């Protein structure tokens, strides 16, 4: 089947999509956008988090066909340009605080934090933990991710 959707502001088409493919697979393997990650492909880790019509979703749980005609924003679409100054404040905060180690959790977390701060510009620590409970990170122990969110909220 053919899937057409708006991804990071551009209309994109994917042909010969097998109906069992996920939005994550289409983004990563058909549209050349591997930013959303594939740590579990079972809805448990949040590494594949993208916006679908403005709502954060696990792209691994969305069937490709469900994205037909809708708007998708991935981590690649958050920064208006390349280079450090052009990065979103959440991306800059992750860099500044050392919240990135292997970085495999990072794209999903950045989308999740971007969404959190859009809803709640000044979240308390328990609010941050609650909002990010679906995003696993194996490297950092989350302390520097907490720092990154606090920094992004104030920048």
């Amino acid at each position, binding site marked *: 089947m053919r899937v057409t959707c708006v991804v990071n502001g551009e209309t994109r088409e994917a042909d010969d999509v097998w109906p069992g493919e996920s939005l994550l697979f289409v983004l990563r393997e058909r549209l050349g956008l*591997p930013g959303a990650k*594939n740590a579990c492909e*079972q809805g448990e880790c949040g*590494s594949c988090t993208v916006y679908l019509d403005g709502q954060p979703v696990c792209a691994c749980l969305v069937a490709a066909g469900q994205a037909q005609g809708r708007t998708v924003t991935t981590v690649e679409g958050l920064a208006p340009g390349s280079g450090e100054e052009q990065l979103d404040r959440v991306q800059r905060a992750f860099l500044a605080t050392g919240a990135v*180690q*292997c970085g495999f959790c990072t794209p999903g977390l950045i989308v999740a934090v971007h969404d959190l701060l859009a809803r709640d510009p000044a979240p308390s620590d328990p609010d941050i*933990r609650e909002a990010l409970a679906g995003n696993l*990170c194996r*490297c950092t122990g989350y302390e520097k991710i907490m720092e990154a969110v606090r920094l992004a909220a104030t920048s």
Partner: protein
Amino acid sequence: MTVSTVAPATVEGGVGTSARRPDGILKVAGEFAYSSDLWADEMLWGATVRSPHPSAEIRAIDITAAVALPGVYAVLTAADVPGARHYGLEVVDQPVLAIDEVRYEGEPVAIVAADHPETARRAAARITVEYAVRAPVTDPEDALSRGDLVRHVPVRRFASAGGTALTADVVVTGTYEVGMQDQAFLGPESGLAVPAEDGGIDLFVATQWLHVDQKQVAACLGLPAEKVRLSLAGVGGAFGAREDLSMQVHASLLALHTGKPVKMVYGREESFFGHVHRHPARLSYEHGATRDGKLLYVKARIVLDGGAYTSSTPAVVANAATLGVGPYDVPTVVVEAYGVYTNNPPCGAMRGFGAVQACFAYESQMDKLAAEVGLDPVELRRRNAMTTGSVMPTGQLVHGPAPVADLLALVRDRPLPPAATGDPRERPGGVANTTRGEGVVRGVGYAIGIKNVCFSEGFDDFATARVRLSVVGGEPAVLVHTAAAEVGQGLVTVQAQIARTELGVTKVTVATADTSVGSAGSSSASRQTYMTGGAVRAACQAVKATVLARVGRAGELALVDGKVVASDGAVVASLVDLLGNDVVEETVEWRHKPTRPLDPVTGQGDAHVQYAFAAHRAVVDVDTELGLVRVVEIATAQDVGKAVNPQAVVGQIQGGTAQGLGLAVMEEVQVVDGVIRNPSFTDYLIPTILDMPPMAVDVLEMGDPDAPYGLRGVGEPPTISSTPAVVAAIRAATGRPLTRVPVRPEHIAL
């Protein structure tokens, strides 16, 4: 940070600064190419058929239906392996694809390449394997009595010659168990194999040691090493799980067979079968002490389940044995450590490597002893703490700083966290806790551990670095090239920092790690900053010597800010003028001081390079009625010798501490009759941001005179003692004995 005994001048972005990761922007932008992100024209997808049985004979394999499926390009079994049909890190015993039998659940039997991952999976499902199922050996004690021994390491050291009787006024005994932990890196096993025109293969993979992969892959493909070229693709965490091969040979076989690039990406379930785990262990200890708590002897028996193949079990057993009494002065030690073969999943390297299991047991014993002699647990440990000049149970003298007592004091003296506020989210179990917190009790626990850094027992451990200095765009620029695996720890950052400090040049690029430069050894054993860092420093110094020789008076000159500067600060020349169009390049192979094998009977010998220490204090709230635990805070103190990148050091300590917390209260690969019951992130739980508390960190910098910049390996120590500290805190809250990790609600509330 406290005193540093080795203080290199601070250079912007150099050693001792929290320089930014060179791969950071790509990682936050979603543009960093991990091993599962690779793509090539005409690429095929690989899939693996795995054994559903922990032990069986293979009677027949029928691939006809799979081959007949449209879109399938190759179906291969053991008979299609052109070279060696087995591989292994030290002992070559693991089949590339099963030959006549399978010895663990998940063992690869056949592989498929197809034009779509789903086609490959369907083809794999159409392969029929006829098994004659055998009863698996799953109990390590049974395996031991059958003689299925991987390695026995005894360590015997006696206070006085001939004084072999183990007697003391106070004796405490205990038997402890550690469950099987998974590394659970987030980036699944994956990579891309591209057939090359010379009949060789270009392999892009996530691994911990490119050259050890190259050696094994080349042997299995029947190719010379130079035709098997590996490049490091982006690595989504490692923690030991990428030391052994996973898809490397399989993807290469399929690529050579089909003449097309082949990508393999494990799903999460397959990943639980695709790598080794932390050895489950059973440990029996007897501690003898005086009434005032001075240790007289420790006797221990440790049995580690190595699973179906050897992997790194021999070295894990040696660590458990040699580090088995902890960072304490113990006059008499009798340790017997065994690793055995079973039909359980193969076990090998995971962060902490044998030291984790032992630490849970000896620290539990130290608490028991403290209670027995009526001492505070920290005070008992301080009375027995080893120090510089102490002698290990192996007879090895501890040369460098060993600030065991200081680390314990640091965590003890930190202010305790405030009482819970009453926010239901702060209760054990969070909002899922249906009580009002009536049964919640707070507890505090302590632990300290010891870890060896670098490879031990006489292993020829080295790292290679190539450093090139030239003028690029009118500026001096340095290119650092090694084969060392950046797995998330920040090694690329550290390499650039060292080059800046040594060569006084700001513009430093770290090339992608590959096998076109010599081996760097593994990103394991907390060794890479020490080893590859040491090699990069040595190569920079060689470059510097060549450059300064051009000016003469080499001894009196330094490189600062792109200039050659005399000892009085006068600028002698700029690097741009001095170099012109020349390129100065040096490659250095660097070694740490040699170690020695252990005596096979007494376990005596200077087997280790360096010792590292971390201490933890855990504060927990336990709902004693529901059996739920919330870790409120963990404080860590660790001596890192020299914090080459302070921010990254703290990140390592926090991340390592989190993995130890996971082992304490939630993480276990549940294996029943050789079958894994929970191969998913739904059922194998790793700590989420709700499970992790604030983590306070004290970093000591007591330079080790033998190590580059005085540094001490950082990655593993924090994983080792956080587990027993958390369990000690739960014991303090509940009074339960808690002899097994992970602690489960029924251990507390029933």
